[in-house]
C-alpha cells in the first residue's frame, strides 16, 4: 500500500489493527456502546491477481501505541480476529515491534512461527537474547502454544562493505542462535534504496523501476528459503 493509498484508506474511515484492539473499549455518547467488529470490514483488498493469488492487509496506525496505555484484557482480541479469517489464507504475516508488550503477546498467541529480521550490529546482539526470553516466558505461561522461531535473517547491511564491528556482531548473533537452536537463513537481505522506493510506490520489489537485478535475486532467494521453512 503506497502512502497515498494508505491516507485515502484512513480518510474513508477504513478500519485498522487499532480498531481490533479497541473494539470493546467504552466509547463516548456520540458513538454509542461498543460494537463487535466484523473481520471482513477490517480487511483491505490490496490486490487480487489474475492467477488467483491475492494480498489482503489490515493496516495499522500510530494510535496503536495508545492501546499499550490500557492493554488490560486485549491480548486475545487479535487471535480471535485471526481465528475467524485464517482458513481463507495460505500465509498471515503479523508485523510487530520486537519490544515485549501486550502486542507481541497477542501476536505470539495467533502465530505458529516467528521470523526475526536482524541487523548485524552491537545493539541487535544485545536485544537478541531479550527476544528469546520473551518467547520463553510466553511459552511458560501458555504451555499449549506451539509458537517457535523459524529463523533469523540478516538485513539492511551495506553489501560488500562489512566492517569488523559488524562481523563481530554477526558472529555473536549466530553463536547465540546456535545456542538457542534457532535457524539462521543462508540468504541475507542487504540494504537497497529500492525497498524504500517500492514502499513509496506501493509496488512489489520485483516490479519497482530501477531495482537492480541482484536485489531482486537476493530477495527471491530468501523467499525460496523461507517458504519451505514454514511448510509452504
Amino acid at each position, binding site marked *: 500500500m503506497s502512502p497515498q493509498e494508505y491516507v485515502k484508506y484512513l480518510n474513508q474511515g477504513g478500519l485498522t489493527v487499532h480498531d481490533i484492539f479497541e473494539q470493546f473499549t467504552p466509547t463516548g455518547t456520540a458513538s454509542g456502546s461498543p460494537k463487535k467488529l466484523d473481520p471482513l470490514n477490517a480487511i483491505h483488498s490490496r490486490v487480487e491477481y489474475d492467477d488467483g493469488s491475492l494480498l489482503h492487509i489490515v493496516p495499522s496506525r500510530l494510535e496503536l501505541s495508545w492501546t499499550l496505555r490500557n492493554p488490560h484484557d486485549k491480548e486475545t482480541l487479535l487471535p480471535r480476529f485471526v481465528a475467524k479469517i485464517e482458513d481463507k489464507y495460505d500465509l498471515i504475516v503479523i508485523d510487530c515491534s520486537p519490544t515485549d508488550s501486550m502486542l507481541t503477546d497477542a501476536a505470539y498467541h495467533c502465530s505458529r512461527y516467528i521470523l526475526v529480521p536482524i541487523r548485524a550490529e552491537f545493539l541487535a546482539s544485545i536485544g537478541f537474547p531479550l527476544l528469546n526470553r520473551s518467547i520463553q516466558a510466553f511459552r511458560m505461561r501458555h504451555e499449549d502454544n506451539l509458537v517457535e522461531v523459524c529463523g533469523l535473517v540478516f538485513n539492511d547491511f551495506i553489501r560488500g562493505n562489512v566492517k569488523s564491528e559488524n562481523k563481530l556482531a554477526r558472529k555473536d548473533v549466530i553463536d547465540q542462535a546456535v545456542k538457542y537452536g534457532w535457524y539462521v537463513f543462508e540468504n541475507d537481505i542487504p540494504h537497497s534504496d529500492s525497498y524504500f522506493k517500492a514502499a513509496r510506490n*506501493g509496488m512489489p520489489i520485483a516490479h519497482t523501476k530501477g531495482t537492480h537485478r541482484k536485489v531482486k535475486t537476493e530477495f527471491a532467494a530468501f523467499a525460496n528459503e523461507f517458504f519451505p521453512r514454514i511448510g509452504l
Partner: protein
Amino acid sequence: MSDSRKSGMLSDHLALLVKHFGVQRVQAALAKVSKEQAREGVRATEPVGSRDNRDQRPLRLTVSSALESIRDSAPEKYSILTEFLGRLVNRQVLPESQDIRHFSQVIGLKEISGKSRKEMVPKLMWFLLEQSVERLKSDLQRADDISEQQRRMGFSVLTDKLIDQ
C-alpha cells in the same frame, strides 16, 4: 480487393474468432503466427520504413477488433473500455510506462512484459477485456490516482496526514 475492404474482413474474422474462442486463445494464436512469420524472415524482406508501422498495426487492430466484437453483446463494457483506450492513447491517463506497470499491479495483472508504453498498452487492454463491468468500473477509477507526481509526493502525504491528526 481494396485495403479497407481487406481490413474490414479481417476485423470481422477476428471478431468471430474472439467470440468463439475467447480473447486469450486468439491472442495466443496471433502471437504464434507472428513468431512463425518472424522466423521465416518475412519481415526481413520488407522495406525498413514500413516495418515499424506494421509492427504496431496488428496489435492495435486486434485490440480494436476485440472491442468491436463486444460492441453489441456488451455495450457497457465496450463503452468503458473504448473511452479508457482513448485516454490511454492520448496519454491523458497512465502517461508513463512505469504508470502502466503500477496500475497493472493495482488491478491484479501480475506480470506485464514489455519495456515501452507502446508495448504494454495492448497487453493491459487484453487483460481489461477479460474483466467484468463491475470490476472495470472500480479498477479504472484507480488509474487517475497513478502518476509520477503522485509517487513523488510519497511520504509527505503520510506525514501531513499524521501531523494533521
